[in-house]
């Protein structure tokens, strides 16, 4: 008797989740599933890959190439620079300054979007402060070799939020390198570079890979910064999908759906790699 009551209770307890589950279904799961369905069905209702074939057109292929390149380059810069800056912060003697720098990273990594883009226009736009300073004081023309409204400019603006994110991700990983490993290595005859090459970097590697893919996904999904800086001058996946929604450029909606699903796959893969790398990173600490 008691058992059946408790089972009933348990079933009733699941009912408590209903509002949330319904909300998720309505605004997260079902729309995405329908998007997947629509991307592989034609208007007549037959299964077709034609939407995906259309993505192979140079314009869209180019946008994938640009997005992947932009995400890859800024993730790489963020990872490498973040490694050195994170280590410098980690080893900074004063706890107060360390906390201050971590707080700064915390805030600035969220400074993506229009305000950030505009800040870069102010300093590096064609009439920007630094641009003008270089031109008038040093006689150096940085335009048109560099332009904040182009690919190179996007790299600079993206690294602004990628770098502090990497710093935040990597600092805890340094804490995982035990002092004993450093001393054992020294004791066995290793100098500083041998320690980092044979032990430090291999131990950090999973964290670095996790950081890299997370930064990659972070950049790949970004929209506002790129939209503010480049408008329609540069073709990126998120910008193209945006155009299919606003109808600014005449598009077949099917192409937008296919691009959206492909970016979900890219994001999903990145996050999958991220999870695997994190599991791997935690293994070192299972001592």
């Amino acid at each position, binding site marked *: 008797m008691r058992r059946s009551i408790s089972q009933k209770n348990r079933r009733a*307890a*699941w009912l408590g*989740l209903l*509002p*949330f*589950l319904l*909300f*998720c279904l309505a*605004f*997260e799961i079902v*729309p*995405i599933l*329908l*998007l997947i369905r629509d991307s592989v069905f034609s208007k007549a209702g037959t299964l077709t890959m034609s939407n995906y074939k259309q993505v192979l057109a140079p314009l869209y292929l180019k946008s994938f190439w640009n997005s992947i390149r932009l995400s890859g380059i800024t993730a790489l810069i963020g990872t490498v620079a973040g490694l050195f800056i994170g280590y*410098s912060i980690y*080893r*900074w*003697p004063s706890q107060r300054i360390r906390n201050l720098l971590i*707080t700064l990273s*915390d*805030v*600035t*990594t*969220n*400074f993506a*979007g*229009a*305000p*950030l883009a*505009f*800040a870069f*226009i102010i*300093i590096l736009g064609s009439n920007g*402060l630094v641009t*003008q300073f270089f031109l008038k004081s040093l006689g150096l023309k940085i335009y048109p070799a560099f332009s904040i409204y182009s690919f190179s400019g996007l790299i600079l603006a993206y690294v*602004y*939020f990628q770098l502090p*994110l990497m710093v*935040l991700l990597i600092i*805890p990983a340094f804490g995982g390198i035990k*002092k004993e490993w*450093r001393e054992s290595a*020294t004791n066995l005859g290793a100098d500083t570079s041998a320690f980092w090459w044979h032990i430090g970097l291999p131990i950090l590697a999973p964290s670095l890979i996790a950081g890299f893919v*997370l930064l990659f*996904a972070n950049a790949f*999904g*970004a*929209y*506002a910064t790129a939209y503010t800086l480049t408008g329609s001058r540069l073709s990126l996946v998120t910008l193209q*999908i*945006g155009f299919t*929604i*606003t109808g600014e450029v005449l598009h077949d909606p099917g192409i937008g*759906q296919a691009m*959206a699903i492909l*970016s*979900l796959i890219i*994001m*999903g893969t990145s*996050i999958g790699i991220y999870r695997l790398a994190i599991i791997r990173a935690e293994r070192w600490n299972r001592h």
Partner: protein
Amino acid sequence: MDISRKSKPTASQIIFITLFLLYMIIPIIATYVFSIATRWDRSILPEGYTLQGYRDAMKNPYFLITLKNSLVLSFGSVLVSLLLIVPTVYWVHLKVRLAKPLLDILMILPFGIPGVVLALALVQVYNFAPLNRSPVLLTSAMVVFTMPFMYRSVSNNLEAIDIPTLTEAAQSLGANTIDILVKVIIPNILPGILSGSLLVFATVFAEFTLARLIVGAGFKTFPMLLVEYTRKDGTIAAGLSVISFTIAWIVSLLILWVGGKGMKTSQDVIKAH
């Protein structure tokens, strides 16, 4: 020769940190100064200072409208998020622990969905009145988009306190269910609820992608006004950027202050821009 800290920073440490600080701070300072500069393209320092940009911004009829819209949207999203997510997380922690893995997946999923994709999916499904292109649909999208922040803050807080023991202790002292919730549980998870709310607020206030793509011109938000002005008037755009930056700073510092315990975990920082 060891990994522990020395009493003085090394030269390379100082160089890296200085470059980092310059990179992180110059754009922000430049925006603040630019917003009050008269002219600043012929000299290192501005030629004069004025608040004209702010006056012009406020004269724009859209200034107050967009500010109001963004505040309504932000507070609305926080409210829905609180009503929907906090009770669910609490319920799962207390009664249906089996559902925790499901919750983990559902709550973290939005991290993997770019804003444009979410916007596309929602716009296509809800293409009928009254939901289509409505602030209500936008609020729902914002709640989904910021779900991971609210979830992590509240869930971490719940993990940190031992709810069953607290509940039993309160029960043994004669408290009823409502008493327990109001006097014991909520005060204990208030820091998590607060920092989650602040994160949701800041994110929604600054969110441009969903607002532009889901409702567009029909319900103009503050970031949309800002983007518009970046193409029209630099000084006003700078003024609006300063307002955004300042709100972001204040909210971040509030979160740190509320959190007290220390830094957010790196997971909390992940954010689809």
